[in-house]
């Protein structure tokens, strides 16, 4: 079959052949069994594709998390308009304010990160070896069986409680299966959350590779 025939047959099948060529092509199709076979193959392929993907469109869809989003360009449009129509002197205080804000945010972030790390280290140390072992079992089970977005929790003997939520599944270039999850440690009214990446090392055995805040 020539490329021209293939494209013409495809256009006929998709209802895209110009009206003027349609009758002539239908006559040709009736005359040529080879063309008919190809047409049947293509039609059955499309039927198969639609049939295969139909269940996906029929499934119950997860809820969309759509909030009220301010279009990002409108703010900048207003800001640029304000700067554009203002005196050139307005640039100077703007830049100074921006610089001060960046410096303050940087210093604040640095101070806060030190506080959080100290606090976390203190809380994590409160878990004993038996609790740690029980927690590891929970992590293994959750990562092995639970879907992303679902949550499991573990309650210790005392006031401590750990909540695990897998968030992402991926494969490393070396072929290892890994999952990312959030681990929230709650002690009384205080809590701390870490993001953890663990990779599968055997059946229901997951090893933590990274933790970050």
């Amino acid at each position, binding site marked *: 079959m020539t490329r021209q025939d293939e494209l013409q047959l*495809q256009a006929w099948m998709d209802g895209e052949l110009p009206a003027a060529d349609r009758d002539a092509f239908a006559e040709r199709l009736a005359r040529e069994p080879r063309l008919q076979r190809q047409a049947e193959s293509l039609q059955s392929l499309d039927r198969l594709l639609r049939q295969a993907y139909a269940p996906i469109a029929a499934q119950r869809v997860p809820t969309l998390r759509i909030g009220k989003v301010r279009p990002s360009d409108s703010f900048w449009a207003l800001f640029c308009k304000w700067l554009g129509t203002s005196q050139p002197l307005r640039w100077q205080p703007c830049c100074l304010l921006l610089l001060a804000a960046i410096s303050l945010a940087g210093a604040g972030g640095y101070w806060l990160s030190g506080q959080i790390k100290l606090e976390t280290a203190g809380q994590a140390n409160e878990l004993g070896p038996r609790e740690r072992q029980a927690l590891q079992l929970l992590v293994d089970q959750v990562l092995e069986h639970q879907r992303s977005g679902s949550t499991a929790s573990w309650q210790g003997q005392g006031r401590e409680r750990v909540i695990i939520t897998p968030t992402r599944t991926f494969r490393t270039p070396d072929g290892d299966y890994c999952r990312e999850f959030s681990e929230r440690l709650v002690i009384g009214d205080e809590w701390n959350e870490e993001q953890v990446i663990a990779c599968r090392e055997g059946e229901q055995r997951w090893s933590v590779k990274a933790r970050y805040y």
Partner: protein
Amino acid sequence: MHSPEQDLTQLPPLSRREAIETAIGMYPRLRRFAYGLCGSSDEADELVQTAFERALKSIRQWQPGTRVDSWMYRIIQNLWLNQRRADRVRGLHLPVTDPDRLSSLRSQQDAESGLLLERVQRCIETLPDDQKLAVLLVSVEGLSYREAAGVLEISEPALTSRLARGRRALLEQLEAGTSRKMAGS
């Protein structure tokens, strides 16, 4: 031949708010398209979610009077292509052991349709990206050549060429699979 689903060209021009509402109404179709691209429900859900966020943020770029579905398909395919490029650098996502996909299919569909989907998806995943997009938009989503070419921002002859190559490759794959199955049994 095309999908009997709602023809938006027949509707009066939509406001931007109505466009978003219309897009939400198309959620199952958009998710099906995303699934065809990603091959897992988890990744498809994330892709569609991100596409809606992007659509809301850039709603001003949508031109009233143009098709909402084409716009949403374009956003999804752009996000997916970007994700593919990033994956090549960072490492692959996992389409194989997707418990979400297996559990949801097994519970909602009988095993036969689940197997059919897996077989077709395996063949689709072997296609180059440009052919995969053309086949999914025309054969599965039922877009016309003009609409599909608009989504992919290519000419109609380029689209028909990609579509023909994609269909030919799929037919070969499926026939080879059937022959192997028969030889095995």
